[in-house]
């Protein structure tokens, strides 16, 4: 591929044959390269970038569907102040005047910024500089606090810096990969696929440590379903085992670390024997021994940890317990060997590089006098803050208390994603000024904003992001900005100028900001004293100019002036502690922040699903991505469910001390008894009561400030309804009087539409009134079987289907797949009533639930192919195409093959 031809192409609205633009996926922290080829109608064709080292051309289901998210129908296109559309000038004047007034009345500490791992590094840099250097408020935090903070804190405690030692290639070079608290198959699909390919080719072992059985479990050699919150016990036990069985790297420990003996003693106290580890973690002794012996006898071990570790009130300890074992064996920073945190967000690391967090100042510098002095001089910022600000959870508590009066949120949705989200929503209502920079029109946060500022979306954004392996990649624009949307850095710069800080914010391009950022990273970063040396140094990228910036290839930091970028760190020590030695860290006794009780008997775990991202403002736009899972749900073990009277597909109300949600019941033997799981993606925009983060307690890790989103004591109970149903319609319909609803976009053949899953608690006698109030005008075809609780209505207009409503007393409703295809083809008058059968008269075309989103292959077709002789995912791929694009569904296909074959064997016997 000719790199020259792939450098920045300007948007070509004229409709010329466009060249692909190399950019970076805006979802998870894997940071895959994307080739976006704009079409002439405001969209683009999306492909993986074969030249990007993170993904080598592959994309997961979410990345593949990026082209579905570019339409403008949900975009915020104009600034809005107090509900009225206005000009940029008015909006910016308003924001500046209000900030100035609030600062004058209540001091700079009454202003806070809540940023996002979706922001580009350049935007982050400007926000951090404006707040900490010029407005003089230290309260700058970010949704990365919910995601990465414990790993960062653990890294800083052990390595003296927020520096990930490994690179992705290590996943292929390892002989053992340990996934801890990571459903990588769904949340970091491309890395998971890289592991699986290597496992297939090289026979590498994969261990999965997770209380839940997930799609990730399918590709693992050993699944350790530990009791929630006991990771440290397992790793302390491992440290003891390694020490007792002679697996230590004594030379590395003595030359490059400190604190080993004390930590080993403490580990021995916490986890004296395998038997005690097994008892504490709820694992079999033999499984624990197997894991320990694999770890001890393998010289190339990569430990990948993610939200299951981070989102814990003891997350930092868990990270250090893992790192302890790598330091003790010297397995760090070496090819195929070391700890590798899987980051949640595309630019969580970039945000940390600029210091866009409450407990960092800038560019990996903290708040010591010398660091503050250095930054003050560099920025020429006399108002520089003196000390740390409030971390996310505390920040919203301060808003709740009325101490913070003005909040500027950029590119995130705290009213949905923060723990105790209902309390957060209430807090937001108390603000004197809530400014939200967003690219969509409506979110639960935007609903409360005084000022809405239209920001660039992916495809328009121009800047850099840093992925989980310290790799800086360009996000390049390939579309013209929608409406009046502007870059975040421009918006902040304009406010800064109005506040009188024009000189410090005279940037005219992201390249200029990047240059200043790179210079700051190298500023006085050559000190002889190791204590002053900072890991983050990209001074080698200063002065590359606009052209160099545009052409910047993906590169791993550090990029020091005069030296090559570093793939790995710390193989030979050189940690960023004052004595350059890594620290062993003793962990506190393992416990959950709030134990279960008679009143709250379940441990509620929250997380993601395969095809949605965060609060669905973008992935929710893609009908393809909604074919996998369409509604908020709770996974529960069948025995727990049957005790509570919860059946598959019925509705449950989950309650905690902090909130409640009503979601669909999904029985799963992959869920341990006493544990439940619910995804956090849904909001008030697309569900009646799916705001799962409102249930999560605010308990935080004392070191990292990261909330424990994976273990809130909860209870749940059936929700009695009279009818379950769905409503398919060309335009979104939100009927009154529903006991439950969740809406998603859907493809009706080739045209877009909406699926509303719903439940009613109403008299059958009132059903026709309800339908009349709900459904559009047109020719109505109705099926009523009140005895079975069945009500079905199809509405036709000019021989085209407009809407279909299915209601049933039972949650077992026909799949919508076939019905959705009926919107595309005109139906003949005589036969159209059979629409209400919900399926074609002959079998065959009914796919079942969609498994492969890329090729829209359903479970029934895969089962049929398995029965027809396809025994491997590869054979299924050859026959049906399923799983051959993004591969995100391969674990599910594998499971389907296994279950189909098992059922067929059982039938044969």
């Amino acid at each position: 591929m000719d790199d020259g031809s792939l450098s920045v192409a300007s948007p070509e609205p004229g409709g010329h044959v466009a060249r692909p633009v190399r950019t970076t996926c805006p979802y998870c922290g894997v940071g895959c390269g994307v080739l976006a080829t704009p079409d002439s109608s405001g969209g683009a064709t999306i492909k993986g970038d074969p030249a990007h080292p993170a993904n080598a051309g592959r994309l997961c289901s979410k990345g593949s569907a990026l082209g579905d998210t570019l339409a403008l129908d949900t975009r915020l296109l104009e600034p809005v102040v107090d509900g009225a559309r206005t000009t940029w000038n008015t909006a910016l004047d308003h924001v500046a005047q209000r900030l100035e007034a609030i600062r004058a009345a209540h001091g700079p500490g009454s202003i806070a910024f809540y940023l996002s791992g979706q922001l580009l590094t350049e935007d982050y840099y400007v926000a951090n500089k404006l707040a900490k250097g010029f407005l003089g408020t230290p309260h700058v935090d970010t949704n990365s606090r919910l995601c990465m903070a414990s790993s960062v804190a653990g890294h800083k405690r052990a390595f003296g810096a927020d520096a990930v030692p490994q690179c992705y290639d290590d996943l292929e070079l390892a002989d053992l990969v340990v996934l801890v608290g990571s459903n990588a198959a769904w949340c970091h699909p491309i890395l998971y696929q890289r592991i699986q390919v290597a496992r297939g080719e090289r026979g590498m072992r994969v261990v999965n440590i997770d209380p839940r059985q997930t799609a990730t479990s399918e590709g693992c050699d050993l699944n350790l379903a530990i009791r929630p919150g006991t990771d440290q016990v397992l790793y302390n036990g491992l440290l003891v085992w390694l020490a007792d069985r002679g697996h230590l790297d004594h030379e590395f420990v003595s030359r490059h670390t400190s604190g080993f003996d004390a930590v080993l003693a403490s580990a021995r106290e916490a986890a004296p024997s395998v038997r005690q580890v097994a008892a504490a973690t709820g694992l079999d002794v033999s499984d624990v021994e197997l894991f320990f012996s694999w770890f001890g006898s393998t010289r190339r071990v990569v430990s990948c940890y993610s939200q299951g570790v981070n989102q814990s009130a003891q997350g930092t300890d868990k990270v250090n317990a893992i790192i302890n074992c790598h330091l003790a064996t010297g397995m760090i920073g070496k090819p195929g060997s070391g700890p590798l945190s899987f980051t949640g967000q595309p630019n969580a690391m970039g945000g940390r590089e600029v210091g866009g967090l409450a407990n960092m100042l800038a560019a990996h510098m903290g708040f010591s006098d010398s660091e503050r002095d250095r930054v003050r001089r560099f920025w020429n910022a006399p108002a520089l803050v003196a000390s740390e600000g409030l971390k996310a959870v505390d920040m919203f508590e301060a808003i709740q208390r009325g101490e913070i009066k003005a909040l500027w949120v950029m590119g995130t949705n705290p009213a949905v994603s923060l723990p105790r989200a209902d309390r957060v929503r209430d807090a937001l209502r108390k603000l004197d000024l809530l400014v939200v920079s967003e690219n969509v029109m409506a979110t639960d946060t935007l609903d409360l904003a005084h000022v809405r500022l239209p920001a660039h979306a992916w495809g328009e954004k121009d800047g850099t992001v840093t992925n989980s392996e310290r790799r800086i990649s360009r996000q390049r624009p390939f579309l013209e900005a929608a409406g009046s949307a502007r870059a975040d850095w421009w918006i902040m710069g304009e406010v800064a100028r109005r506040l009188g800080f024009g000189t410090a914010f005279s940037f005219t391009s992201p390249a200029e900001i990047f240059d200043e950022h790179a210079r700051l990273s190298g500023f006085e970063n050559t000190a002889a004293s190791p204590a002053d040396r900072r890991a983050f140094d990209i001074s080698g990228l200063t002065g590359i100019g606009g052209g160099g910036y545009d052409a910047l290839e993906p590169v791993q930091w550090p990029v020091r002036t005069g030296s090559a970028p570093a793939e790995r760190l710390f193989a030979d020590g050189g940690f960023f502690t004052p004595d350059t030695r890594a620290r062993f860290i003793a962990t506190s006794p393992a416990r959950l922040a709030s134990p279960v009780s008679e009143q709250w008997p379940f441990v509620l775990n929250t997380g993601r699903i395969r095809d949605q991202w965060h609060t669905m403002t973008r992935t929710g736009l893609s009908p393809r991505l909604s074919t996998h899972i369409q509604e908020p749900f709770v996974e529960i073990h069948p025995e727990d469910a049957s005790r509570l009277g919860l059946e598959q597909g019925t509705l449950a109300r989950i309650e905690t001390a902090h909130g409640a949600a009503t979601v669909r019941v999904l029985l799963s033997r992959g869920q341990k008894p006493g544990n439940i799981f619910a995804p956090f993606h849904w909001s008030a925009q697309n569900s009646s009561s799916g705001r799962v983060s409102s249930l999560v307690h605010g308990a935080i890790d004392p070191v990292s400030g990261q909330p424990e989103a994976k273990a809130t004591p909860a209870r749940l109970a059936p929700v009695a309804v009279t009818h379950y149903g769905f409503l398919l319609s060309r335009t979104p319909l939100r009927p009154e009087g529903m006991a439950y609803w969740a809406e998603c976009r859907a493809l009706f053949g080739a045209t877009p539409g909406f699926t509303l899953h719903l439940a009613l608690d109403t008299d059958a006698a009132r059903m026709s009134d309800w339908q009349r109030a709900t459904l559009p005008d047109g020719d109505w075809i109705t099926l009523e079987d009140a005895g079975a609780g069945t009500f079905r209505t199809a509405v036709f207009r000019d021989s085209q289907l407009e809407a279909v409503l299915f209601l049933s007393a039972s949650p077992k409703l026909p799949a919508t797949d076939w019905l959705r295809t009926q919107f595309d083809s005109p139906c003949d008058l005589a036969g159209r009533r059979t629409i209400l059968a919900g399926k074609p008269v002959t079998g065959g075309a009914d796919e079942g639930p969609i498994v492969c989103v890329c090729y829209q292959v359903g479970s029934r077709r895969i089962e049929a192919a398995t029965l027809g002789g396809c025994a491997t995912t590869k054979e299924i791929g050859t026959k049906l195409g399923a799983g051959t694009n993004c591969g995100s569904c391969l674990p599910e296909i594998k499971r389907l093959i296994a279950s189909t074959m098992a059922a067929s064997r059982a039938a044969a016997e």
Partner: protein
Amino acid sequence: MPYRSRSRLVVVGNGMASLKLLEEVEAGCFDITVIGAEPEPAYNRVLLSSVLAGDTSLDDIRFRDRAWYAGRCMTLLTGDPVTALRPARNEVVLKSGQRLGYDRLVLATGSEAIRLPVPGANLAGVLTFRDLGDVSALQAIPAGTAAVVIGGGLLGIEAAYGLARRGLDVTLIHLMPHLMERQLDPVASGMLKDALVAKGIRVLTEASTECIEARDGHAEAIVLKDGRRLPASLVVMAVGVRPAQSLAATSGIDTGRGIKVDDKLETNWPGVYALGECAEHRGQWYGLVEPAYDQARVLARYLSGLPARYEGTLIATSLKVSGVPVYSIGDFDGRDAEVIALHDRAAGTYRKLVVRDGRMVGAVLFGDTADALWYRDLVTRRTPVESLRAALPFGRAYAEAA
């Protein structure tokens, strides 16, 4: 007849029930004489409206010509109706005075149209719609004439449809709130009304006739009880039929609503039978062709010396009303039962299935009767339907694919 080797069978009436009996009975067993009141041999009365509408020719509604009767050694007498029965003497008396003796007598006298007892009911221009004679009279009325058809049952609707097709300006008035309320539920009835209106017929329900006004002895308008006055130089009374049982009633044969028969279709007089629309069996009187045919088949077997019992016919109505196929069977009302209804008003199709205790007990189909026979089987065989309940309204193909 000096010599008789076979017993004599006399059939009074030559309608559709009578003909079916003659077709089914073992012809060699009897000397058969059939006496029809109308000048023509039996024809398909069901298609009269179609003839009126001009959709079907007279020839098309004839069943058997006279040669057929002759060929089977049956004597067919037409235009000489029976005026008296003398069961005690085993003979019937014809209008011409002729007397016919019999060994077995079958009464298949059918039914006669009812005339409303309202002032003006016998004016010129006030007709009924029952036989070929009525059709000929109606065919003579010129297009554009203002006509009112009284009666929203099958006959009235067909008359209205036929007249509208001939270009008359037709209003159909019906006493009840719903057309064909005995064969259709209110929904199907409403759809039928829509279909008639779409064909240019004005339909007034809950309309009760006060009187028929005349000018020069000829009908000019109908006045309703609510005071409305509808111009009408033609009035067709199609308010129902009554069993033609006066011959029997005056001859000592038990009658009720019709001529009472037992399961052998025999009256209280041994050797005297009745069937079709003139008969009443187990308290039930049928105004439809299918039970008449069932009765004819049973009686034919019985007369031929074969074991046979008639135990009633599950009422199924299967017709084309003004060109729209309609079917109803069993208990389609659905009171105290579960109702499954599939309705496409704009397309004019409707299926209502009635389920009681897990079995189908009745159905109404409108606009599309493709699955009528399947539903009839489910009803008559009392098949449990719970397992195919979801597919039931979509018909046999769906149920079998499920």
